């Protein structure tokens, strides 16, 4: 298998799906001639031309509404948001329409579309470009939420997303774009709702996704030096979510820690805690802890920013606390 970066894996999925299905087209700000802010779509305008790769004006509500309209009439839009922080402008389109058209039409109209792009902190982009958005989306019935951590998962899940008959929100962490990993060539799809045990262990379970997986892996290496073996579960998709894999792990380790960049207060970690206590309470030997973002707007200063997001040492400390 070839080693590729996260963004190359995404690009590969886009190319394969565009080649497979003519109804698939790309739309977004500066994704064509400029080749994308994070260069995920590098070369695609040159390869496919303006009929398949649409540079849009800076009009998030407008072009996301267009994608919804195109999707209900049979196309397969893949929309890039330059950052998910800009998708707040289009939350009306996403929440009021993409998520509801199937339901309110009694199943008559489908919205098979993907919105993808970066979300998350760590690039000194300060308060308005650093949002994690997964919780806002996962909270809304009708949206699938995909948030991969490795290049291979990104490819396999994006291909599945483009083939899905529902609106799929695909979240890429900007700090992952240049990470590398082996990526299967050609046809490679991953099902939604199947978590991946990224590391097996017996002492505690870290439940996480996206960049949190990388942090957890580093924490696991450090803990191993002290003889502590943690299990890491990468949820990969939050809607649908593979809770059974989580519960199975808790039944083994009896300890759980949820990790994410997003704000702690009412974040997805709270859902993880609730699910475990509802379904695996009897197996717990310690309170479930959350290692999550500080509940503040993201500061610009590098030092402050670092303290606003989870660090490896925070996870190490949390694991030790529950042992």
């Amino acid at each position, binding site marked *: 298998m070839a080693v590729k970066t996260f963004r190359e894996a995404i690009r590969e999925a886009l190319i394969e799906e565009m080649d497979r299905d003519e109804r698939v087209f790309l739309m977004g700000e500066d994704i064509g001639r400029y080749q994308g802010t994070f260069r995920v779509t590098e070369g695609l305008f040159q390869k496919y031309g303006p009929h398949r790769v649409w540079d849009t004006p800076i009009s998030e509500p*407008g072009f996301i509404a267009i994608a919804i309209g195109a999707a209900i009439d049979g196309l397969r839009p893949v929309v890039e948001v330059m950052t998910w922080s800009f998708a707040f402008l289009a939350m009306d389109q996403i929440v009021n329409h993409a998520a509801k058209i199937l339901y*309110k039409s009694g199943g008559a109209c489908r919205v098979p579309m993907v919105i993808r792009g970066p979300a998350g902190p760590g690039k000194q982009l300060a308060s308005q470009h650093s949002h994690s958005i997964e919780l806002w989306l996962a909270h809304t019935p*009708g949206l699938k939420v995909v948030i991969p951590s490795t290049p291979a998962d990104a490819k396999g899940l994006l291909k599945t997303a483009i083939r899905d008959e529902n609106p799929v929100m695909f979240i890429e962490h900007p700090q992952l774009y240049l990470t590398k990993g082996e990526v299967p060539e050609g046809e490679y799809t991953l099902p939604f709702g199947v978590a991946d045990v990224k590391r097996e262990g017996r002492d505690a379970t870290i439940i996480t996704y996206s960049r949190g997986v990388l942090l957890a892996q580093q924490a696991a290496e450090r803990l191993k030096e002290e003889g502590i073996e943690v299990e890491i579960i990468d949820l990969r998709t939050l809607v649908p979510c593979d809770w059974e894999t989580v519960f199975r792990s808790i039944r083994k380790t009896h300890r759980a820690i949820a990790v994410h960049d997003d704000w702690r207060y009412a974040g997805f970690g709270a859902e993880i805690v609730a699910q475990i206590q509802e379904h695996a309470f009897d197996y717990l030997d310690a309170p479930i802890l959350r290692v999550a973002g500080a509940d503040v707007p993201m500061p610009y200063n590098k030092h402050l920013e670092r303290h606003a997001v989870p660090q490896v040492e925070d996870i190490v400390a949390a694991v030790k606390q529950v042992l």
Partner: protein
Amino acid sequence: MSTRTNRTKKTAHIPDAERAELIELYRQMLLIRRFEEHCDKAYRQDKIGGYLHLYIGEEALAVGFISQLNPDDRVLGHYRDHGYVLALGSDPKAVMAELYGKVTGLCRGKGGSMHLYDKEKNFLGGYAIVGDVIGIATGVAFAAKYEGSDRIVLCFFGDGAMNAGLLHESLNMAGLWKLPVIYIVENNKYAMGTPVELHSAVTNLAKRASVYGFPSETIDAMDVLEVRKHARRIIDHVRTHKEPYFVEAITYRFVGHGAADITDPGSYRTREEVEEWRKRDPIPTLAKYLLENGIATQDELDAIDREVRAVVEEAARFADESPDPPLDELWEHVFVD
């Protein structure tokens, strides 16, 4: 018999197809009117819940435009949407059942008055967030262009939507990409209870929409023959020239913003103003034309009225007798499996 003789004499120049089309326009407008008169009653009886926005007074617009479409053209509208589906030929029983919230409704009782869909008739949705249909209809037109088809899209919305930011974004992209969509603003003078003069810096709405690189004009929408004439020309233009078009349709609703609107008339518009506009009621206007030109007799018009009343009665009975959605329907259609 004398009427019949009279008709034959006066209308020798009107071909049968045209005669039939005019009668059909009349039948459709009357169907919408009678259908909604029943809705108003059913709303007061709590058979219809939520919000109910009636199209009474504006029938000529939907009927005049939709009558000129090809079968595979698309229509989208805002939440005052009963007129569009009925003009498109949706089954009145399924429409009424939807308003009653029944499982036999167009959307299995899960959409209601403000969110009708009829994919078979190419009605791709009534949208209940003011202005949002403009963006989605633009996307449906995008699909038509993308596929290289000859389809065009009608997008209906109210004058209040002129002030939603999405209008600017959508019209810009439609102009930029030459999308086959006709934006039709139903200028009925009021955004709920706020007159155009108090919500739009420029009250000529066609002028406001004239800066996006495609044609824009104002038409009189109280006369279905006028609407049909303009619709024919505008639809042909859009299909031929592959570009959008903006239509400001001057119209008026004879009833309140919603069936629950207790402020009308009196609070934001006068009874006199409503009465003045009622003189231009599109249904008697067409009736007069049909009679004067010997296209139909009063007996024939009365028969049409009896016919549509029977259709509405049957729809109401069907809706009444239909079951509620079963409880497992609650969890259906959140996702396509």
